[in-house]
């Protein structure tokens, strides 16, 4: 049941990739821009997505694999709903960024580069987001948080939990409404 759902999810993704490929010239130099566009849209590169790109550019899929795995930017698994990036640039390191990362890892029970089994959170390390004067820095869902402290992490998750509760309540409400309406 769940596998089926994921399968069709992948199907939809592949159809949408096929639809966007003609936007790009059929030229080897477009490989990285194409991979970036796919990831931008779908958060990760699946094996079949790489095959589509190879077919489109008429290069070997092995080459696509080789290029994609070289660069940090590309992911091969869907990331969590909330993406946490901890800066370990020089200034953040000096200010104890590793302690921040460790606290996230401990809190979520995963290592950097991993996603929680419920696909809620993923944790990554990044090198300098360019806000060194605010070190240590974490980027949570594209919002830069300066002067991080382990104690701020607790609050962050409380907020997420609250959000989720609210969403659930809203969904339940909507469902009830829908039922009442029918």
């Amino acid at each position, binding site marked *: 049941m769940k596998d089926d759902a994921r399968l069709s999810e992948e199907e939809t993704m592949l159809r949408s990739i096929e639809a966007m490929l003609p936007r790009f010239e059929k030229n080897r130099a477009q490989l990285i821009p194409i991979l970036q566009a796919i990831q931008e849209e779908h958060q990760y590169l699946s094996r079949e997505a790489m095959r589509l790109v190879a077919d489109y550019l008429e290069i070997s899929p092995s080459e696509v694999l080789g290029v994609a795995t070289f660069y940090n930017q590309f992911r091969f698994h869907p990331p969590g709903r909330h993406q946490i990036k901890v800066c370990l640039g020089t200034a953040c390191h000096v200010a104890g960024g590793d302690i921040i990362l460790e606290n996230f890892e401990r809190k979520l029970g995963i290592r950097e580069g991993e996603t929680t089994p419920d696909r809620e959170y993923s944790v990554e390390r990044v*090198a*300098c987001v360019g806000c060194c004067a605010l070190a240590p820095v974490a980027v949570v869902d594209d919002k830069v948080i300066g002067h991080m402290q*382990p104690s701020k992490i607790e609050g962050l998750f409380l907020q997420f939990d609250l959000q989720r509760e609210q969403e659930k309540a809203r969904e339940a409400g909507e469902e009830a409404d829908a039922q009442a309406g029918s």
Partner: protein
Amino acid sequence: MHKLDPEKRLALLAEEARKRQAQASREDVPTLRIVMSTCGLAAGAAETRAAFEEALERRGLEARIVAVGCLGHCYAEPLVVIHHPASGFPPLCYYNIDPGKARMLVDSFLLDGDPALEYVLGAMVPNDLLPAVTDFPRFSMEQRVVMEHCGAIDPHSLDDYLALGGYGALATALGRSPGWVLDEVARSGLRGRGGAGFPTGRKWRLAAEAPADSKVVICNADEGDPGAYMDRTIMESNPHQLLEGMALCAYAVGAEEAIVYVRAEYPLAVRTIQRAIDDARKAGLLGERILGSDFSLHIRVFQGSGAFVCGEETALIQSIEGRRGMPQHRPPYPVEAGLWGRPTVVNNVKTLSTVPAILTRGAHWFRSIGTEKSPGTAIFSVVGNVTHAGLVEIPMGTTLRTLIFDVCGGIPKKKAFKAVQIGGPSGGCLSGDFLDTSIDFDSLTEAGAMMGSGGMVVMDEDSCMVDVARYFLDFTQNESCGKCTFCRIGTRHLLLILDRITKGEGREEDLELLDTLSRDIRDGSLCGLGKTAPNPVLTSLRYFRDEYEAHVREKRCPALKCRALTAFYIDLDKCARGCDACVGCCPVEAIFTTRGRKKAIDQELCVKCGECVTACPPEYDAVVRVSPAHLAPIIERPQPSEGRG
């Protein structure tokens, strides 16, 4: 119209731009310039802007809000410059403006005319009423050539750039000849700001003379040093200056295609540059037959995808060609055979951004700044334990001492200076003995550091040099492309050795091994990444050997930084009975109550995050950190009386 020369055409454009500007800014309407570059946004500039807008609306006031780029004063973000002509005050620079202060300023200054001087950093221009920012060393000791207009102009406005005489150098050059540009740049003595300091004039001449039908100019904006962000700032704050520099380069060498290679992590810079390209093309300053001349140039943006090594020029070219970014053996150099085998000039953002000023004001003027062998200015992002962190542009030849202590305000919290790391992962750590070193390409290289990318991290007495070396090796080891033996495997060994030293598992022979292996990696690697990766190790071994020895022989970290070698404990004499301040802050619940109703730390559980140090009220100041770790007294947890176990 067709007979107009480029300079006349540009003069018309500039005049129109000034007219449009004059219409937009009315004397009676105040202007708010909010720094909205990446660092400003991280400090909350978007919230500040929203607060201004909302407060203005509520009060029914009219004001022009302009989002500007970075002033370089990152320690004071969010920064806002308010010009309120009706108040009689000159433009005032406000620092650390959060939404609350923003609302307050609307009421007090814009409504009542009281400028709330306590939040003012200074006036933007010298005047009789109050001190100007230019009176502070952080402003007055800088000399801005590249960053002159950063933070003053709206990066999204071509008009702003044109009104200041922008694209003037290009127009002049188009009226003369490529040879004039080549000569002038060569005479200026400009050296590449991307790290190695190669003479730009010579590079361009080689490309100009290379026989080929088509050539390429690439602006290297990969800025991979994990503690440097001046290239990003320049792109976000004054993109047209860079485009003009690229156009001048392309004209000089005979290229009709140019690419800006921007790091993936810089989305705002990408958007800003892309918009500038589009605007310039629409105005006829890029694209076909620029300003009516025979010269055409198409510039596009290529986004990197997260690989430090792609800052290396041959790897960068591989990556644009859609390959793994692995450096190639040189020669052939890119100027001979670069992108798609064509002659290619690769220059750094700062190098190219300097060129318009050189051509406008002359090579002679440029040579009057800086030193004989390194003319011009240097831009550093000074971060770490320094009071006024941010971007600084100073003349070459300034000493490190002046830069760190006078310009940037020295070390905060009354701590002592220990070292400065210059040049990022390829640079080195210099000790206090080198504070009088002049900042220029050759002096820094001689000292064992490197101009490199322009990252500068100031470290106080609490920084551990072994840990810093380990940090940089961890970085380069992660970023090695994996092609050549020395870098791929050698840096891994260096990292493992440093790792075990910081964990207290170092061996006596490790220091020797670090030294020889570092030299072999330096001499044997294929590209600059591997050749320079050992620099942080070699310099720290040379200047801070005693710290390595303390780690290895006594299992002691003199800076109390390496976590495996230190321990926290609570001084029972200082701990206040019944105080609970530290208990809740510990992320692993390692703090317990002793029989005497004081607190103690369970050394088994403690992860050494240091939170309790911050939590302990300063009047008790009872948490102590020691090294080696065994110096911490072991205190038994009292047996739980309610029989928990």
